[in-house]
């Protein structure tokens, strides 16, 4: 049994998006879409979060905070890139200040396309992420077990 899939807490970071995708993430929290139905809470704090919802094409200054937010999330964790900007830089790909795509900085597990990504699409993306989250947890458990056996042997 796993609770991880029933209680995915999110943290949202706007890595230089145009706001379009961000307000759709927020909209997903509000009554009409109400993602709390799935136990999703916007914690606003990477240390409490399981899923990083990231938007935007990642500009020069965002590299460090984005990495930091990701690093501060405890394992297991997944990253969902929301919007076209987050996927490839989209329409801003060619701008001098964007790196184009979140995967340039941190590993991404799920891509949610759309400009702006619709709330429903974001819900789909998070649901897809849940499966990956569970896999990661199992992997973590295995690793933990093998670690402890090692300690036992030594």
């Amino acid at each position, binding site marked *: 049994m796993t609770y991880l899939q029933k209680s995915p807490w999110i943290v949202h970071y706007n890595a230089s998006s145009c706001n379009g995708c961000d307000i759709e993430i927020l909209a997903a929290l509000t009554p009409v879409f109400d993602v709390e139905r799935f136990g999703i809470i916007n914690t606003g704090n990477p240390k409490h979060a399981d899923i990083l919802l990231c938007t935007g094409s990642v500009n020069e200054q965002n590299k460090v905070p984005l990495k930091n937010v990701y690093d501060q999330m405890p*394992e297991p964790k997944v990253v969902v890139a929301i919007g076209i900007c987050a996927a490839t830089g989209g329409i801003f790909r060619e701008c001098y200040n964007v790196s184009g795509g979140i995967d340039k900085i941190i590993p991404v597990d799920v891509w949610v396309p759309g400009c702006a990504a619709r709330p429903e699409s974001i819900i789909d993306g998070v649901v897809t992420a849940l499966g990956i989250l569970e896999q990661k947890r199992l992997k973590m458990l295995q690793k933990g077990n093998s670690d402890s056996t090692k300690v036992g042997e030594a």
Partner: protein
Amino acid sequence: MIPEPFVPVFYALVYILVAPLLGGLIAGIDRKVTARMQGRVGPPLLQPFYDVGKLFEKENAVVTATQNFYVLSYVVFMVVAGALFFSGGDMLLVIFAFTLSHIFLVLGAYASYSPYSHVGAERELLQIIAYEPMIILTAVGMYMVTKSFFVSTIMASAVPIILFLPGIFIGYLIVLTIKLRKSPFDLSTSHHAHQEIVKGVTTDFAGPNLGKIEIAHWYEYVFLLGVIWLFFAWNPFIAVAAILVAYFFEILIDNTISRVKWQLMLRSAWVIAGTLGLVNLGVLYYLRMVVP
């Protein structure tokens, strides 16, 4: 049945086992009702349990290993305080144990030397000093009616305590808002943290530690609602009804009021304790002690 001297132990054990279940359920209902007040469907009823289960599945990331100790102490003493209460112990001792447990939470936040935890810790302390007088006055009020600080005696009393302590009761409900971390007094931390200080005291706790804090909250809920019971102890049905109404009232307040700043919190909590509480006690004192 259970031999006499073990009855309190039995109650304490029941509390230790049942309170988290009940507390989690209360939290679940709370979230459900809150969602409905906002026109949403809300999470499943058992969501709080999923959350805590999840937290224990996560990595225990700490800023300093000492955090583990403070959190564990927080939980343990919260349980001790509640168990003492339900085993019929001395109210004042319960209150002190309760404070002790909170101090551990605060220390845990301080330990991490992080700006948000730090501000959260300071605010948590401000909350403690805001509600503590009122809670002590509540105990004193109970004593003045029943001549005992022992919960067991208060429980056994056939007097409708609420009739003697209406002011105290209202005061208690108001500081309860602080304790339940509800608006307008969710200063030090709050449920979803759309807050200037992120998650305040709990900012730098993650995974299992956060789960423990949550469990401690559940124990706390049950204990705090248990105090409401005392006001109505003479009739269990009314007591249950009162708890339900009171809790609904708390949720309603949470949903219909903005967060205040610490100055107003301290002022209102103290003024309420100082007026409602003291006037109530004063009148009672006059009736009981002066008029024979």
